[in-house]
């Protein structure tokens, strides 16, 4: 009984942690080829409501976006921001794990 209860509590805690975690997105951006250009895309993405962090990986033409808890990012809004920065959105996906490490290799 105690074993079952502790398993239930552990599962519940883990589920809450997952639900409470910030959502992360991975964008593939074409046309991005220098550090100075990266600033514009950071600025446009940071204007989106709920965005808490933007990390540009220039060498891989990938941008990681972290959203505030409970907020989501739509592909249309991202497409608009990337276009306003002067670039082209190639790919859009939500990261499957907390490190946001999928889909970029």
């Amino acid at each position, binding site marked *: 009984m105690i074993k079952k209860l502790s398993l239930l509590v552990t599962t519940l805690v883990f589920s809450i942690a997952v639900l409470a975690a910030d959502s992360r997105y991975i964008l*593939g951006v*074409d*046309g*991005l*080829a*220098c*550090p*100075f*250009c*990266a*600033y*514009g*895309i*950071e*600025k*446009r993405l940071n*204007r989106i409501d709920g965005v808490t962090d933007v*990390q*540009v*990986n*220039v*060498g891989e*033409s990938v941008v990681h976006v972290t959203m505030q808890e409970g907020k989501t990012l739509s592909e249309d809004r991202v497409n608009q921001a990337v*276009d*306003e*920065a*002067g*670039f*082209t959105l*190639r790919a859009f996906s939500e990261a499957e794990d907390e490190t946001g490490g999928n889909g970029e290799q």
Partner: protein
Amino acid sequence: MVNSNRPSVGVSVLIGTLLLAGVSAVQAAPNTFNTALSVAKGQYLWREQLVLRERSGNGPMERDVSVQALGSVLGYGVTSRLAVFGMVPYFFNKELDVTTPMGRIERDTSGFGDVSLFGRYTLYKKDETGSTFRVAPVFGLTAPTGDDNDSDRFGELPRPLQPGDGAWDGFAGVVTTYQTLQYQVDGQLLYRENGRHDALARGDETRFDASLQYRIWPRSLKGVAGTPSFVYALLESNVIHREHNETGNGTDADSGGIQWLLAPGLQYVSRSWIVEGTVQLPVVEDPNGDAIEDDYVVRIGFRRNF
């Protein structure tokens, strides 16, 4: 007398291209001319470029011209395709040393020059992963905002030595850029039509500029995450044709010509700063008559995104 008709015209002729090529090219990406790369919507670009220019003439007047100026540029992305820029030069010193019947004399001035306003529109872009190709027309004008009636103990300074030109000028051209993570190539064709003021119109100018920037640091981007700073080696080329100046009664034979300048340099590029420097050196000088020639032009500056 340096203010007599002949020396005055001669001086005008010899200094005639100062305003055009000295700081007017202080624009956006290569050091000596423009780029087709976009400015993001709502983004500002601030640029300062210190220009040190030495010129000399071979005629009997042994003219030497020295210019120290700071070109200040503010750009703004109206949309991702349209960026507008304002540029104003400040001349710390514009100095002419010339031999006259009175002996060797020096004339100089300082102050703000003429303001240029221009726009750049990205007409075509092709983005790929890690590279982009863009074509952007450029169009603008230079307003006669600088002082154009400075004088010294010899009288009113010759027009080209004034901080301002006194005339409205217009310019238009097209710039293309191909940028990859390893290198960037820019090319620009620009025509500038110079207005007339007080019976002098500087010769119109056509220029073809090209630039190669090659990343020398980091040597490889493998395993480099985030947005590392780059260091580029750069080589720029400027071929400039200037027509004769038009004076009250015709054209000035000792003005205009063709020159080809090469400019090696270095550029440090981070996420929000660029620090850069080049030295423009004449490879070919083919002036009309006794028109003055460039010895060298040093350009040092920075750009800031915000």
